């Protein structure tokens, strides 16, 4: 059975590219367009990985992360942002994100590699790499 990925991304084009790119690689993808919807889906359905944008209407990525952490969410969350503000990265990691990538510097192949890695490792080890 294929892995299920939740893509929370407000930019239509990025959402579509990401969706198609991962579906082609055999993942099942659900992609809400804002943080509120993303949070509801993440907590009501079972996923193997959550890809989370930072700057979004209604509920920002950080707020989603904060809420997920409050509920002891155990699915790895990979933050995909376009902000390279060091503070954002630190905040995301402090809230238990499994990784923080700048979308513009990420190719779809690279992203797919990360997704494979994160969906195949046990969820408890999600934050070891990002200690720095």
């Amino acid at each position: 059975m294929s892995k299920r990925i939740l893509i929370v991304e407000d930019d239509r084009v990025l959402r579509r590219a990401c969706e198609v790119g991962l579906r082609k690689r055999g993942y099942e993808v659900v992609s809400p367009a804002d943080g509120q919807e993303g949070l509801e889906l993440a907590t009501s359905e079972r996923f193997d990985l959550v890809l989370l944008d930072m700057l979004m209407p209604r509920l920002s990525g950080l707020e989603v992360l904060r809420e997920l952490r409050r509920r002891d969410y155990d699915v790895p969350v990979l933050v995909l942002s376009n902000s390279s503000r060091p503070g954002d990265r630190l905040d995301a990691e402090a809230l238990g994100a499994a990784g923080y990538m700048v979308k513009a510097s990420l190719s779809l192949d690279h992203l797919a590699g990360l997704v494979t890695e994160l969906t195949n490792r046990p969820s408890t080890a999600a934050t070891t790499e990002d200690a720095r």
Partner: protein
Amino acid sequence: MPPADHETPETRDARDGAFRRLLRRYPIVPVAFALTVVGLSIGLARAVERTEHRLWRERVERETAGRRDELATVLRLWSESYVRLADRLGRGLYPTEAAWQADALAHLRDSRDPYASIQLFDERLRDGWSAVGSAGIPAPRDGLATAMVEARSAGRPVVMPPVQAAPGIWTFRLAAPIPNGGLLVASHSITAMLDPLFERTLHGMRLVAGDEVVYHKGAFPVGFAPGEATIELPGTTWRVLMAPEPPSTGMVSLPIVVLVFGLLLGSSLGGAVYLARTAAERARREERTNATLASEIAERTRIEAALRDTMAVQRGILDSASCIILSLDRDGTIRTFNRAAERLLGRSPDQILGQSPCSLVDPDDLAARAAALSDELGRQVEPGLEALVALVEPGRPDTREWTFVHADGTRFPVELSISAMTDATGVLTGYVWIAADISSRRHADLLRRWAEESLRRTEELLHSVLDSAATGIVAARAIRNDEGGIDDFEILLVNPAAEQMLGAAASALVGLGLRRRFPGDDDAVFRACVEVVDTRRVADYEQQYVREGRIGWVRVIAAPLGDGIAMSVEDITRRKQAEADLAQYVTDLERSRDQIHEQSVVLQWQAEELTRARDEALAGSREMERALKIQADFVSFASHQLRTPLAGIKWLLELALDEPDLSPELRSYLEDSRQSADRLIGLVNDLLDIARLEGGRVSLSPAPHDLAAICREAAREVEPNVASRRQTLRVDGLDTPVPVVVDAAMMRQVVDNLLSNAIKYTPDGGTIALRVVRDGPEARCIVEDTGIGVPEAARARLFEKFFRAENVQKLETEGTGLGLFMVRLILEKLGGRIWYEPREDGTGSRFVCSVPVEGADVETDTDRRGRPRAA
């Protein structure tokens, strides 16, 4: 739309088609055109007519010949059948008349001719056997003898001239000689003979034998000559006249149709062109008129609106003005006024309008002014309008102070400016009065003068107190070091008594450090002062001093004064010496202390001022901090906004490139697009990095790292690029750890930048070297290449933002001039430097960057610039 006035023939030509241009330039064109069409149609009609005649003639000839041949054949067949009958007679095949008659009647029946007959004659033309058709008319005997002779002598049948067997019945007669003597004459009605043959023909036809028309059928058309052909018959010649039906039926022939149609077409086209041209001309004229009219109306509306606006604005300005504004005609009658005039004068409009302005002015003022003017001008000036406007000239208003009278009789001072109004020729038309109420100004002036005076008096008093005091008074401000501790006190104020005690003039003391001025006092005074400032408590102590060999005593009272102290220093030597003077002294002391208190209040106030100033300076720096934060937020926002669409482009292009069935051409386009997007992303990243570095908001985390390892990693990663250019990468000193304190990611960016530059600007097959060496407290990373190098002129500006050397610009156009600038920024943040060194052999280039090694005194002063140490 532009006004039609501006439409030149050129622009009209440009707008119209070529045809319209032609029409306008040559008005004769429609007529010429019509005439040409008429001429052409006449020519065409003639040609059609000629062709028709020719074709008709050919047809007539062809058909005539055909009819002739048919006729000749019929006649020949008849002749032959009778010749055979005559033959059979001659050979005696008919034994009896009845036998012959039966055969002959069969012949006659076959002919279906009631007028037919066959008769036999002997050589003397006596009647022999005969067979007669149903009409019972025998063949006429005319010309029988001639036929007998001709037939017998020729030995063949002859056709006899036609005769009428009955009225209108022309006969064809054949005389055939009978062998062994005799003549057979067969007679037939020509009509009966030919009608069956030609009953279907529509053509007109005539058969003419000699001069007689022996057969005619149909009508001949008028104006056409019939075709003619001859039929050679035995012994005679007949003619056939033949005319087919006319080529066109009815009144209207094709040429006429063509002609009439051409005429109509020509004239109507000509007329239409003319009408169209006239209509276009008229439309253009109307359009032009309308446009002119519209623009005039628009202009007038605009002017009216502007005028209304201007008037409203002027009215508004006048009414909102706080000064009285009046206009007067040349006789001095008030014509207009503003609200302020009503308000300040307390008069209703009808008490102002039409009045003389003299009623507004205090009569005493007016009288005084009139008197003064009389003196000045040397003539009698009445205290009326003239006293007000005597000095006013066009372009030179007269401004002076007057007293105006309110309706309730109170008076108020005004500054009145009277200007002359003139018409266009410079003739005086009236005056404008502008009067500002200056009562409040006067009041303020008074207050200010009083305040200044009291301040001056206070100062004088203070100075005289200070100057006359026997107590030395010194005020000083704390000079603090960076840790906030007090290093010294700067003397702010010294009074004459203190001057005397300190043995120096105030000018030599003020601004100096207390400690520096009095060294060697084992700092007791200084320490006491520091304590006063720190504890904010007044200190009162006695101090012994030695001057010119004599021992003396001073009593010092030090009180905190802002961030400093005020001290009163009193020489108490005499008290110490003479207790008797004590009482008096105490009185003096108490007086002095009061004075000091007074002074210290002033000093305290000054110190508070200083504190406030310092707080303001602090607030300023907080402002700056906020601005920096806003900038950082902006950079972060811009980075998101720029990168999101770029990432979208990049990912979609990757998806497109994944499609399996792309043509190689399309694939290369997409690949190029993706590379462009990558380059754009790189540029945005560089710009953002620089913005952050420049804004001082980048967070570097310097920590101990191995510079050699960082360089090894960088070298490993560029290996494929080097190989693809067939270049050689030499590394040196990367095996020994070189501990440095840097932010690893930033340092890596520096090395990557330098290596990528070296690869880019070194030709294929060249050599690139990467070395790490240790030099005292610094570690150096050196990147060398055998490439195009840096021209001498460019070296000074190499690390500036956006700078690109000339040879680099020629080589490729993609660079941004940001790479080395960013390298410099990063290194400065890390407490390091970068510089360029020409290589010993003069080729290629060498970049050296240095960073502090671990354990060295790390200096992160960002003011240090990465300049070369040696030239």
